[in-house]
């Protein structure tokens, strides 16, 4: 007798013989089922070698079903392959590794695709999908989805969340208690290092009582979970972290890798079975989009939730492509052997370019509209069918005749096919957000979802040009940038034809100004014209009351593309490239710079700046006095920098490297890619690492250095405003108007300050 259950798909993973499937039923029960699921890998190569592989496979202790098949390789067309079906999914990894080392000359496909993605592709399901499961006892007979990852308002699963966090950062000290929260209950549980049993009995009782679906921790991957697992093993406690007690807790090692010109560090991971564990401090972009975003990532990428929380958006977008490929019967190469096609020097010169980045007109501008193409690069990939396997006649869209950029012919490629639903979902979410009132309680949720999707869309462009990406190809990547440049230039031409002044252009956005254009309605005609000429949607990011494009620090006549700040008509501030945006700026300095901007933002328009300027200057004076008197708490002076290589590899150690040496002396290890927090101090080595047990002496803090950094940040925002106000006053004076009474605050330079500083004795800070 078959039983039908509806609910949310919670987790899928292989066990010894088949797959374990967890479903949260509509009845509130957490069901564990099993399902038979066979997985396939393919091998291609010379016929005699495939024959040998066939014989070799038949001798292996793993049960396999072998057959000859025709399959599509995106780069090589139809190929004849040996299909290896493995009915025990857990045995695949070992078999595949053995196969590769025994037959390194063959081309393998689909070998390293995770079971969860295969399952998602086979049944069109995804984590937290609403589904209808037909079961016989504990065996799944049939599973079918009731919704799609593209639904805007999926029915939320009733997740039970248990939050466990230590009372302090384990890197900085030894935690003395853990804070446990569940629903409305919250309590602190002391850790008694002699008598560990009490802690474990309580945690065990909580897990048994609440039976959480998600254990949300702080530093759970790096400290809490390993500590609990280790101690419970040493003392023989049975701690039911896994809901599935037949499985062990999965631990993965830390690693460091190089991505987008940066060293990235990924901490150790601890994953549970039948339950999820997410560590807030080891979740990618947790601060950007939180749990809502993580669940959205899992839904759209089909990665298991515990992986989705920890993996980069690049892996996410690859997973989506894999699912598309599996569903369309396209082979996923294990290692890509696709080299760049030969090009002449002239071809290279024409095509090896990025997006168009203009040099802005330096200075303060009033009533400026920022207009952006909506998801430009992914939008173009979908619209113009840019995919590695789609042939392109040439990469220069500027030679396209006709009003619109012509899409490539032929059937949709794998990249556009994967992106289209994601892009449409994001656009739908964005327009939904636009219609909601500012204080609507759903707004943050939708924003988290849109933000998670934004990251996926952003990375998909990079992956198109990444030589190791399975569906990457540099020509496709170049085509995208070529279309981007063309669209931006067409937008510029449209704006200039309509008498707008172009102040700046940056890859997918323009900043334009026209005397008298102050409301969104004034720009509608321009937006329509650009859409007409490019065929791409463009939207008004906002109208700035005023915006300042900053010059380079080295030469004040040379503009830099991405360093500006401005205030929108609604009073919100936008900053790019200035100190406040940098992660290595001390919080106190960021706070001051943003404080100044908030004060300036109160001016009703650019003309009103002269009235708020004295207030901003007074604020700076107050902050500076606090800094010089040592009244700023040390936490606010912390500088955080990334360690870019092993400490021994520095020829002249950076401040971060010197701080790491102190950490190492205190017995801590820091891997490249990790951030180090420190204070600038007097004398050698000039820094004091923060994450060491002893607190630094406030008297040693190098205040003159902080003053220099402080003044530099203040000058960035105040100098252009002062210049423009003084120019305006100068003009007023010439026109014979009365003195407005504004007196300029001369920003003291670093030298005046340090000399005057030396004369004052250092006073100890009242803040330890």
């Amino acid at each position, binding site marked *: 007798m078959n039983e039908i259950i509806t609910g949310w798909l919670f987790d899928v993973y292989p066990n010894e013989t088949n797959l374990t499937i967890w479903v949260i039923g509509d009845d509130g029960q957490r069901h564990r089922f099993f399902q038979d699921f066979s997985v396939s890998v393919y091998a291609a190569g010379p016929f005699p070698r495939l024959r040998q592989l066939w014989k070799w496979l038949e001798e292996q202790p793993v049960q396999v079903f072998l057959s000859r098949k025709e399959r599509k390789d995106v780069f090589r067309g139809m190929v004849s392959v040996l299909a290896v079906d493995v009915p025990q999914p857990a045995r695949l990894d070992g078999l595949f590794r053995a196969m590769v080392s025994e037959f390194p000359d063959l081309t393998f496909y689909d070998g390293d695709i995770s079971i969860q993605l295969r399952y998602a592709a086979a049944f069109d399901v995804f984590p937290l999908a609403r589904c209808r499961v037909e079961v016989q006892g504990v065996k799944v007979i049939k599973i079918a989805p009731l919704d799609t990852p593209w639904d805007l308002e999926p029915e939320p699963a009733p997740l039970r969340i248990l939050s466990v966090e230590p009372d302090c950062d384990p890197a900085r000290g030894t935690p003395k208690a853990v804070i446990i929260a569940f629903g409305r209950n919250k309590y602190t549980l002391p850790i008694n290092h002699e008598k560990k049993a009490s802690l474990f009995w309580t945690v065990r009782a909580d897990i048994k009582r609440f039976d959480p679906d998600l254990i949300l921790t702080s530093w759970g991957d790096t400290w809490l979970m390993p500590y609990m697992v280790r101690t419970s093993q040493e003392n023989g406690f049975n701690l039911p972290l896994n809901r599935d007690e037949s499985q062990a807790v999965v631990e993965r090692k830390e690693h460091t890798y190089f991505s*987008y*010109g940066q060293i990235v560090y990924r901490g150790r991971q601890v994953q549970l079975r039948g339950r999820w564990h997410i560590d807030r401090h080891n979740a990618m972009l947790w601060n950007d989009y939180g749990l809502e975003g993580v669940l959205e990532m899992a839904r759209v990428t089909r990665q298991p939730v515990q992986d989705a929380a920890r993996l980069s958006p690049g892996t996410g977008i690859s997973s989506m492509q894999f699912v598309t490929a599996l569903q369309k019967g396209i082979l996923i190469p294990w290692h890509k052997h696709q080299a760049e096609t030969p090009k002449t020097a*002239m071809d*290279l*010169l*024409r095509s*090896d*370019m*990025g997006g*168009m*980045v*203009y*040099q802005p007109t330096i200075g303060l501008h009033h009533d400026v509209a920022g207009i952006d193409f909506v998801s430009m690069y992914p939008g173009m990939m979908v619209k113009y069918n840019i995919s590695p396997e789609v042939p392109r006649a040439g990469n220069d869209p500027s030679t396209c005749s006709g009003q619109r950029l012509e899409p490539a012919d032929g059937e949709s490629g794998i990249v556009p096919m994967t992106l289209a639903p994601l892009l449409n979902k994001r656009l739908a979410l964005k327009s939904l957000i636009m219609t909601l009132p500012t204080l609507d309680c759903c707004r943050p949720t939708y924003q988290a979802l849109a933000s998670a999707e934004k990251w996926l869309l952003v990375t998909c462009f990079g992956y198109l040009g990444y030589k190791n990406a399975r569906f990457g190809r540099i020509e496709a990547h170049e085509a995208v940038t070529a279309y981007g*440049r063309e669209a931006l*230039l067409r937008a510029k031409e449209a704006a200039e034809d309509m008498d707008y002044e172009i102040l700046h*252009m940056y890859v997918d956005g323009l900043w334009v100004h026209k005397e008298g254009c102050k409301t969104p309605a004034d720009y509608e005609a321009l937006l329509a014209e650009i859409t007409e000429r490019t065929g791409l949607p463009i939207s008004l990011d906002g109208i700035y009351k005023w915006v300042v494009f900053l010059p380079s620090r080295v*030469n004040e*006549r*040379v*503009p830099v593309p991405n360093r500006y700040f401005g205030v929108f008509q609604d009073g919100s501030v936008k900053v790019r490239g200035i100190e406040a945006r940098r992660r290595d700026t001390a919080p106190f300095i960021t706070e001051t710079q943003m404080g100044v901007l908030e004060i300036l933002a109160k001016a009703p328009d650019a003309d009103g700046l002269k009235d708020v300027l004295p207030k901003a200057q007074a604020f700076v004076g107050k902050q500076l006095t606090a800094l010089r008197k040592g009244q700023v708490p040390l936490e606010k002076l912390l500088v955080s920098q990334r360690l870019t290589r092993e400490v021994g590899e520095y020829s002249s150690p950076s401040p971060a490297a010197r701080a790491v040496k102190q950490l190492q002396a205190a017995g801590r290890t820091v891997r490249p890619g990790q951030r180090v927090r420190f204070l600038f101090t007097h004398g050698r080595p000039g820094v004091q690492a923060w994450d060491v047990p002893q607190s630094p002496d406030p008297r040693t803090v190098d205040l003159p250095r902080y003053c220099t950094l402080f003044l530099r940040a203040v000058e960035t925002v105040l100098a252009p405003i002062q210049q423009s106000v003084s120019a305006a006053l100068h003009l007023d004076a010439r026109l014979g108007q009365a003195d407005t009474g504004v007196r300029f605050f001369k920003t003291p330079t670093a030298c005046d300050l340090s000399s005057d500083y030396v004369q004052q004795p250092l006073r100890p800070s009242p803040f330890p």
Partner: protein
Amino acid sequence: MGRTLPSVTQVFMQEEAAFARFRRALRRTDQLALDDLFTAARQHLAAAQYASHTLPFETFLLSMLLEEHKEVMRLRQQMDDVLSRQS
């Protein structure tokens, strides 16, 4: 990041560096004027990149000329204004 070709900014800096000996032998006042010319060329790097000319220095020279001509036009306009006010 691995690039097959240097970016236009890199090419510009190489070209500027190639004139270091020339610059050194100039009078200080002339050196400053030369620096101004290079600064002027910098304003149009985006256009120079898009042009992807095989001899980029030609584009830089044209950019310098362009900025010079803008200045001539501005001064001419000012001159006209002054003259018209006098008459």
